[in-house]
């Protein structure tokens, strides 16, 4: 039988080290969250091509049903949509992972460790951005040779904006998961109830210009619509426009609110 020993140095490291920085805690949480993704490249690959499938199946229909209103610009209009949609679906559903860890006991395990409570939320929310960036690169790489006009500077700013928005939405998703952890089916009810109106009113899939007036008014209250408009401007290379500014406002407000609500929920999540 092996003897189990932690050397005095290691033992001291576990007990007497000064309080770790939040950044390091976040990094540890993120690494743990990314492990299963890296360990299972097949599921990663499958997830990566999903936006492409949607792009290929929906894009031509969009072009056709709009009777050529976009001309050749349909991809310029639709590629940013797909990136926003990928963010929306990826981050708004991520709370389900936490819900599962509530049920199994893995989340409780994390709560008794020296990791700070806020790192448990921020690390998880940040992790969602990694596959998102992979998906964005694939979509852009595939579309650019055909009909998509890549403006690199705008694209980079666009992805940064999406990341900020996505972190906020992910944080909201975790907050929702924590709130409904005792009736977990509620998670999907609430998530779907929010997701579809927010998505349709953002003009992501179909332009709102052809819709009734009340929808255009309602869209003004949908933060996602500002993000979508900003992304379209950015991916067309217009970095310094009002649309982009409003996009940043929407993304930053979403992130600030999401993280505030999320961290507060996380602090109470053991009860």
């Amino acid at each position: 039988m092996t003897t189990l020993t932690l050397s005095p140095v290691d033992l001291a490291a576990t007990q007497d080290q000064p309080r770790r920085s939040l950044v390091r805690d976040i990094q540890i949480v993120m690494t743990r969250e990314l492990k299963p993704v890296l360990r299972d490249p097949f599921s990663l690959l499958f997830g990566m091509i999903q936006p492409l499938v949607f792009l290929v199946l929906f894009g031509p229909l969009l072009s056709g049903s709009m009777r050529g209103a976009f001309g050749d610009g349909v991809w310029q209009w639709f590629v940013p949509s797909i990136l926003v949609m990928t963010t929306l679906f990826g981050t708004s559903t991520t709370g389900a992972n936490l819900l599962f860890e509530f049920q199994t006991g893995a989340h409780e395990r994390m709560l008794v460790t020296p990791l700070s409570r806020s790192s448990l939320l921020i690390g998880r929310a940040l992790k969602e951005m990694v596959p998102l960036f992979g998906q964005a690169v694939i979509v852009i790489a595939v579309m650019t040779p055909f009909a998509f006009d890549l403006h690199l500077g705008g694209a980079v700013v666009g992805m940064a904006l999406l990341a900020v928005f996505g972190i906020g939405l992910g944080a909201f998703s975790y907050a929702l998961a924590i709130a409904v952890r005792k009736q977990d089916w509620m998670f999907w009810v609430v998530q779907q109830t929010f997701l579809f109106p927010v998505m349709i009113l953002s003009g992501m899939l179909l332009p709102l210009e052809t819709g009734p007036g009340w929808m255009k008014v309602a869209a003004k209250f949908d933060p996602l619509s500002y993000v979508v408009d900003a992304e379209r401007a950015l991916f067309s290379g217009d970095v310094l426009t009002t649309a982009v500014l409003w996009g940043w406002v929407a993304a930053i407000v979403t992130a600030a609110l999401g993280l505030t609500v999320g961290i507060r929920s996380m602090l109470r999540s053991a009860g």
Partner: protein
Amino acid sequence: MISTRQLTRDFVVSRTETVHAVRGISLDVEPGELVAVLGPNGAGKTTTLRMLTTLITPTSGTATVAGYDVTADPSQVRRRIGYVGQGNGAGHNQRAGDELVGQGVIYGLDRRAAKRRTGELLEALELTELAGRKVSELSGGQRRRLDVAMGLVHAPKLLFLDEPSTGLDPQNRANLWDHILRMREQYSMTIVLTTHYLDEADSMAERVVVVDHGELIADDTANALKAKLAGDRLAITVAPSNLSKLSELAGKLPGAREVIATGDELSVRVADGPAALPELITAAQQSGVPIAAAQVHRPTLDDVFLNLTGRSLRETAAATNGKAA
């Protein structure tokens, strides 16, 4: 190692209803002790444990764990305690080895030390071959051993186990206990566990704390509790005509109580059954009462609980479907 004073926790269920899950528990645990907290579901065992492990804050009262106050200094407490909860600590879509290395890093080891430590723990808990396996693919017993390994990554001096063997078959329970007791010896760990398995508290713990309705109602070694609160029971079969004579003799035994005669059997509680039985047989023979059969029933912790509360622990456990509050 642990010291609580008037520890209390209320849960506000609604505006009109507050559940008093723990009502003023004062408890001291010395280094090296193995203490079982026994009680039916909803008695407040898990709530107490969750306060001691900093998962929830007490409504009132104080608790010092491993030298630090759970409310004022939770992060210091967390570094020094190991905790194995009711669920599985390892994420189900993680690999067993990854989770252990990750825990090591969380507790402040560098990656090399964490890997070395992981190797040791996997070997000690007979999990080495399963290091690359996804947690969801492990059996219940394997998963539970992994939970224990995760609780021991930082070699804590104090380990909390919340219903460690619930849901395991007898063989896996025994195996898990072998491991836990061996680890305890190696680290000279203090262990506090909750259980509603009577036999587990009986055979494993040196000290049994009985909790009911959020209060501590008994605290002693299992044997002392049984002797003090239940006592051995003698069951003697004689001819019905001799019952009254035998009852009289039985009543004179040291610590005799609950002398009950039914049909051709006499039942009596005594302090020390094995010593009282020959005494009673000799006395009966001298009085010319032939004894047909005689038995000593050692008490169980269930008898102790019954005497303390008027309810049987087994029935209480069966009647409560919900999780422990």
